[in-house]
């Protein structure tokens, strides 16, 4: 595997100029190890013939690293000082160290813990050259990670196989270090770490890689203050929810469990009214309508009020959904009425607009799937909406929210929480048996990626993904004057069956938590469904339990 000599000569004229230094720094022992390579000696490089293979190998690694390094890496070539360029082997080694450790010299207020493993910092400031041997091993390993994906199978050289779990751990540590740097407002360090994350992420595969990439992008956006232009377009988000509905069971679980609670609340009513805070494509309602149609005693008259965001192209998306539902209703023989309301925010709604009829005539249900947490971004938002709900006098309120704490005051805590949450979520997408990586899967990941971006990069009114855990929502609803309605065994059974249908049914878990149902992946709950009624009113579910 001999390099062509011309390539070596092209890589710099420095060695010729600094050849005078070599006499001082380099003590060559001519007796140890054979003759210098004649051809290279002519050019001013002293390479022993026995070392040729090694040098060639390192040059090859260098070429690969240069190919995969970020653009900034190349410019570092000019800035670094090579202590003995005519020692070709050592020179290449220095370059490799530079490429694999693109961090700048460490900030004095940054305490370097060896667990972050930034030994690859170039120069002698951090680590004296004596310790460069373990550093060499590290860089050799890292360079191998870059090259292993492309060529390890074809080489006959002894390759140190990198433990990808090790880079996985390193990746997580670097993510955390970057978040900490952002928390401390140390943007220079954060910037360097973000680039490092990119390199590490490329050596991973699958869910870890995707999650790391999204988090790295979000961190970069936060550091450079470049916010995604369409982050505030909720109609785009609605469209992205469709592939998410299809590829994984979370939304289906949400719909089925909420429907079960609503069905039980509607058990004796002859006219019912559902107010859906986020109509989107109306995927929740066909199943409810079918269940109402087959109700013993015949279906009630069904009225649906759907609320949605304004569309960028001014089409009436709500009306189209209403039309489809009307066709379905006609098919299965249900009296159906639909109204759509366009609102930028739920807080803009006034209950009077909704034409609520008295409870003796019509039973009302309010449904909010992932619609309440964005209200936490505006002061007073959630209070206004809760009081509106109370004014509607609903028999039941169904709430589905993400089971995560992404609304804490400290950025680093939010970041850590989000990292765990979305890693689990992506893991479940991976393991859900969607065998060929389909476009729907990619769109679902994009849907989640936008959430990640919002949680990490945005602040203030822009940060709408303010997820809070069930315990906090419980407190909020109870102080506002609601009491919990227990989701019964029917809902639990339906949910369990639904999940068993998904290819990796053993990964998903349904848990009952004080009358609420939570869906999670292995041990981590991810979304929670809860149902509420106005405190002081009697609940209908006790009656239905007797009947069933």
């Amino acid at each position: 595997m001999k390099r062509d000599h011309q390539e070596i000569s092209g890589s710099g004229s420095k060695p010729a100029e600094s050849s005078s230094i070599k006499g001082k720094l380099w003590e060559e022992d001519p007796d140890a190890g054979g003759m210098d390579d004649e051809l290279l000696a002519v050019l001013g490089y002293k390479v022993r013939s026995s070392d040729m293979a090694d040098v060639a190998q390192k040059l090859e690694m260098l070429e690969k690293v240069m190919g995969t390094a970020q653009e900034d890496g190349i410019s570092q070539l000019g800035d670094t000082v090579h202590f003995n360029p005519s020692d070709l082997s050592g020179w290449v080694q220095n370059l490799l160290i530079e490429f694999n450790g693109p961090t700048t010299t460490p900030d004095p207020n940054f305490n370097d813990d060896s667990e972050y493993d930034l030994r690859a910092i170039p120069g002698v400031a951090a680590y004296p050259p004596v310790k460069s041997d373990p550093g060499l091993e590290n860089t050799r390993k890292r360079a191998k990670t870059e090259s292993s994906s492309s060529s390890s199978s074809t080489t006959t050289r002894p390759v140190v196989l990198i433990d990808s779990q090790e880079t996985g751990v390193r990746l997580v540590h670097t993510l955390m270090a970057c978040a900490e740097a952002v928390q401390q407002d140390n943007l220079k360090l954060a910037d360097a770490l973000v680039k490092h994350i990119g390199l590490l992420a490329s050596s991973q595969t699958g869910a870890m890689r995707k999650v790391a990439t999204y988090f790295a992008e979000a961190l970069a956006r936060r550091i450079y203050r470049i916010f995604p232009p369409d982050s505030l377009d909720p109609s785009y988000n609605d469209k992205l929810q469709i592939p998410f509905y299809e590829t994984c069971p979370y939304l289906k679980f949400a719909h089925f469990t909420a429907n079960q609670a609503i069905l039980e609340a509607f058990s004796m009513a002859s006219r019912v009214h559902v107010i859906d805070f986020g109509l989107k494509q109306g995927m929740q309602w066909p199943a409810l309508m079918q269940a109402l149609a087959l109700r013993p005693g015949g279906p009630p008259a069904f009225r649906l009020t759907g609320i949605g965001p304004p569309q960028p192209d001014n089409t009436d998306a709500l009306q189209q959904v209403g039309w489809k539902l009307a066709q379905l209703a006609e098919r299965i023989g249900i009296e159906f009425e639909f109204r759509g309301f366009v609102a930028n925010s739920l807080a803009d709604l006034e209950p009077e607009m909704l034409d609520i009829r008295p409870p003796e005539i019509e039973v009302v249900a309010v449904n909010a799937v992932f619609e309440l947490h964005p209200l936490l971004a505006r002061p007073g938002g959630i209070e206004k909406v809760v009081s509106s709900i109370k004014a509607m006098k609903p028999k039941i309120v169904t709430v589905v929210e993400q089971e995560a704490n992404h609304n804490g005051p400290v950025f680093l805590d939010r970041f850590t929480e989000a990292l765990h949450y979305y890693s689990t979520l992506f893991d479940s997408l991976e393991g859900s048996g969607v065998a060929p990586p389909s476009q729907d899967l990619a769109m679902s990941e994009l849907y989640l990626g936008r959430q990640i971006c919002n949680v990490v990069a945005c602040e203030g009114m822009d940060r709408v993904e303010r997820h809070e855990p069930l315990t906090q929502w419980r407190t909020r609803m109870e102080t506002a004057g609601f009491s919990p309605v227990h989701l019964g065994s029917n809902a639990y059974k339906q949910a369990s069956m639904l999940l068993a249908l998904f290819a990796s049914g053993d990964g998903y878990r349904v848990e009952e938590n004080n009358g609420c149902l939570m869906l999670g992946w292995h041990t981590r709950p991810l979304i929670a469904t809860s149902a509420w009624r106005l405190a002081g009113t009697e609940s209908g579910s006790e009656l239905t339990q007797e009947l069933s």
Partner: protein
Amino acid sequence: MVQTHHCEDHETVGEDKEKRPKFFINDHVDILIEILKRLDGRSLCVAASVCRLWCTIARNDSLWENLCFRHVSPPPSSVRSVVLALGGYKRLYTGCVRPVRSRLGRVRRASWAGDEVQLSLSLFCVDYYERLGGSNSNGRLVGESSPSSLMFLCKPVNV
């Protein structure tokens, strides 16, 4: 015994036709239906390719209705009108009931039989609703309007 009988008949074929009327199942459609009613889904599909008569019978939705509700207490009459409106029992069976039953077979508990049908009906309704999308590709970023909400049932299970 039948074979020896045939041997004797071989010489007197013409006379035999008048003496011994052969039994053709196709002449007795009611018996045929009773038999086909008891078949499982796959056999019913195979039966449909035997001959035109069998094909017509097998297409009859009531046979598939039987299949769907075989192990379940008889459903209320309202179910029939809903199912027929949404596409018929054959579609319900092949699209929902069969995959649901086979998937849940691993973890099935006896009490789930009725709920399996309930769940299948709900999924069936969702599927119908998606098919209503038709030429209107609003909301579908991908542009295809083919319903895929039931696709998760079609995907091979990694056993």
